[in-house]
């Protein structure tokens, strides 16, 4: 099929009602789209923090720089935890689609443990850095680093709280439509955090050589 055919062919199963007469989109679509817009605006916030970090990364004020502070193996483990939790979150989405509570709890628990492991690793990294005298007040580079990575960590922490709340809602309210919609928003939020982390490990940790 040529591109022109693909563009003009009616979508299969689509009714012929003109778009102006179809009424509002279904609520799942409205909720999903609205949350997608929120996530994009959240990513815009992160882009401002990334820009600040990129500008300030070489302003170490005589203090330690990224090469001295960052441990790549450690970051690879953190990345693995977050990526695996994104995958198990996807498996949870599939379980929600089949409305199987037991599988949903299982993958939610795995997602929670991996996310908590990520936060634990990140916090211990922060504590080690501060103990070495590389606190946020030391230099503009470290202020930008703690703001960017800390904001991401805060998002992950809030995501973990949200996941616990959602599991309580599944337990008490079952898979009623409103709960399923919230779960969809949670999975989108969790995947978005992983996208931001790709930027963090590339620019902050792997980019430390090229400041």
């Amino acid at each position, binding site marked *: 099929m040529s591109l022109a055919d693909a563009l003009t062919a009616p979508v299969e199963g689509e009714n012929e009602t003109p778009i102006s007469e179809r009424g509002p989109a279904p609520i799942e679509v409205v909720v999903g789209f609205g949350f997608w817009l929120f996530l994009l605006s959240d990513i815009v916030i992160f882009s401002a923090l990334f820009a600040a970090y990129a500008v300030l990364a070489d302003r170490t004020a005589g203090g330690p720089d990224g090469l001295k502070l960052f441990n790549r193996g450690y970051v690879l483990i953190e990345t693995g935890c977050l990526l695996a939790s994104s995958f198990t979150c996807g498996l949870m989405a599939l379980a929600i689609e089949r409305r199987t509570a037991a599988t949903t709890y299982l993958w939610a628990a795995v997602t929670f443990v991996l996310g908590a492991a990520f936060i634990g690793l990140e916090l211990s990294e922060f504590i080690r850095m501060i103990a070495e005298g590389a606190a946020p007040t030391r230099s503009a580079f470290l202020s930008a680093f703690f703001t960017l990575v800390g904001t991401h960590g805060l998002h992950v922490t809030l995501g973990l709280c949200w996941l616990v709340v959602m599991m309580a809602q599944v337990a008490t309210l079952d898979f009623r439509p409103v709960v399923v919609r919230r779960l969809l928003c949670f999975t989108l939020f969790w995947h978005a955090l992983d996208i931001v982390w790709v930027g963090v490990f590339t620019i902050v940790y792997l980019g430390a050589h*090229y400041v």
Partner: protein
Amino acid sequence: MSERHDTPTPAGDRAPGTDHKGSGGLQGYVAGLGFAVILTLGSFWVADTQLVWQPAIPILLAALAIGQMGVHVVFFFHISSGPADTNNFLALAFGIFVVGLIVFGSILIMANLNTNMPMSIDHLMQMQR
């Protein structure tokens, strides 16, 4: 596909993350994880390797990161360029546009200020004393 229309038929919209038929459900997530793992390990390997011309490494890292973000959007968010995704896709395009403006604009402006400011901060501090 029977009849042709003069204008494209606007399809029913689809929420992000819901299309498990189009991207293959479990298979889609497994494929996404596989690509993401390869790209992540690739990034960490490229950052350390001596096999690549060294000045090319930052570009390579950027390409791998953008590729991995694309993998996440396609396999985890299930955003496609299909007609049901028009709104999601346009919002994404606008988001990328704003992110690009903020990041490259900031870097460009700050670098420009840096080179065009004749006095350093140390110099200014000395003048204040």
